[in-house]
């Protein structure tokens, strides 16, 4: 091992530099500055004032709670919508088409969130494609107000995150040998039994890592809630953006950021504990 030492340190140095200067130090700074507060004399002092501001103003913690519950619900919705698709692509569709269909899934992600959310804005607006189409075929007389509601925000969040649910579930299902399902079927297992006893347990690591990534993307997203959600559906990230880019109260923004980080870490930790998964496996 001795002669390998130099190589080891050559490998270690850039990784340490990356992790310490861009991950560890910034988060320490975030944590420290969330406790700094400019008092009436203009001096920076350490206090809990930034966190107190969060609890004193109803809109902050209401938005916080709403964001948490919506994120969990939308993650569940994304799972419900995409699980059949993941199953279809890895087990049902003929192999001839599965490559092409999987690739099609990736296109919206590569195109980027801004463009796809902008597309939904055009689709959902009052004189947008969906309203015009419904009026054209005579189902409705006046446009339905869909844009700038929780509904449009939910569509946007599901759309931008769902691929990250499908891919991990697909890769978990791909390793499930078809002959196991065949064997169960031969032995007379019902579809419900096969589904709950074989498919779901087998897909569980994929479901867990997909849900965690999707949840994190949703709770930390700004574009979909801001462009599609409008005033009636505030998202907690929007409060952080306001603190940093509109009112320039960075310390309070840091406190809000830390609250969000704490919330998302807590929920992910709980999800890992409940599903018996490990973070190390989420990455793979």
């Amino acid at each position, binding site marked *: 091992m001795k002669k390998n030492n130099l190589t080891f340190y050559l490998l270690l140095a850039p990784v340490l530099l990356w992790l310490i200067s861009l991950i560890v130090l910034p988060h320490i700074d975030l944590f420290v500055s969330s406790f700094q507060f400019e008092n009436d004399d203009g001096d920076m002092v350490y206090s809990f004032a930034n966190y107190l501001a969060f609890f004193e103003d109803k809109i902050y913690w209401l938005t916080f709670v709403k964001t948490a519950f919506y994120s969990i619900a939308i993650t569940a919705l994304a799972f419900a919508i995409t699980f059949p*698709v993941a199953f279809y692509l890895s087990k049902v569709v003929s192999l001839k088409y599965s490559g092409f269909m999987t690739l099609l899934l990736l296109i919206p992600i590569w195109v980027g969130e801004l463009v796809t959310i902008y597309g939904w804005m055009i689709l959902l607006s009052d004189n947008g494609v969906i309203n015009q189409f419904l009026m054209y075929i005579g189902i409705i007389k006046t446009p339905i107000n869909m844009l700038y509601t929780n509904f449009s925000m939910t569509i946007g969040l599901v759309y931008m995150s769902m691929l990250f649910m499908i891919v991990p579930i697909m890769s978990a299902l791909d390793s499930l040998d078809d002959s196991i399902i065949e064997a169960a079927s031969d032995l007379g297992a019902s579809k419900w039994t096969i589904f709950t006893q074989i498919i779901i347990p087998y897909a569980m690591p994929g479901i867990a890592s997909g849900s965690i990534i999707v949840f*994190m993307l949703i709770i930390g997203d700004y574009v979909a809630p801001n462009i599609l959600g409008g005033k009636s559906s505030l998202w907690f990230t929007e409060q952080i953006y306001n603190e940093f880019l509109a009112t320039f109260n960075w310390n309070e923004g840091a406190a809000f*950021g830390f609250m969000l980080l704490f919330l998302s870490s807590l929920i992910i930790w709980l999800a890992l504990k409940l599903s018996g998964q490990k973070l190390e496996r989420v990455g793979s």
Partner: protein
Amino acid sequence: MACTKIKWTKVRKGWFMIRSLPNSTIYKITFRIYISLFYIFLIMPLLTVAILAFNDSNFISLPWNGFTLDWFYINTEERVGLLADENLILSIWTSLQTGFLVAILSTIVGTIAALLFEQENFRFKGLLYFLALSPLVIPGVILGISILISSTIAGNYIETNFGVDIEWLRPSFWLVVIGQFSFGATYVMLLVSARLKKFDRALEEAALSLRASRLQAIWYVTIPYLKPAIIGAFVVAFLISFSNFNTTIFLAGSDPTLPIDLYSRIKFSSTPVLNAVSFLIVTVITLFAVFSLVINRKK
């Protein structure tokens, strides 16, 4: 035997489920309808913006007023097309440069991290690996604000103590590159690690026994083996950078990347030139996807 027969008929008449088993027609049709609806949902926003890029109208949405190419090149008082819009071209150029630099940096450090975590054993390895994965579970907003805060603190410290103003520690082109690199490297590490796991270390040992140094073995044996994954990871890092908004918004200075520029246009001054840009991006990505499919087929 009779028993087996009955069960097979039951399966044939039944419903489930995978390619190799017979499926009922209703099961197949329901599934196909659902999948078709899903793909319509998937394609609709992209198709809509792409088509509306050719709408002869001053508004981003319907009604359809006929075909025009105005929004791609024209430069009049009323309409400024994509090629005539200097700010837009500039932000596309900024995004391309950023993406390229982020991809290079992330690929180098991400690959090194993959080698380190897959092949070496050392104290605190678990902790470091956890940190390297953490950008997956830290919201982009948080990465953005924490890097903004710490670079500002560092910049202020250097300015008061040494009297030097370091520009790239303020929101700027380089700070965006640094910020996007902080999570780009994680994705590269994961993609390269996946291939490195399948690597037969006997090959490296063979090189070592032929008196290659460890670095030579990595450079001449391991890296060539990893090449496909490294190229793939480079592309992924570029695309992640090109479309990032959440982290970039805090770190961008006076030269915004394309997503930042698009965002402010969507919010404050949307014209159909947005559709033209969207059309361009959708087309390039689709061609790229088809290209990668063809390459994979050949293999």
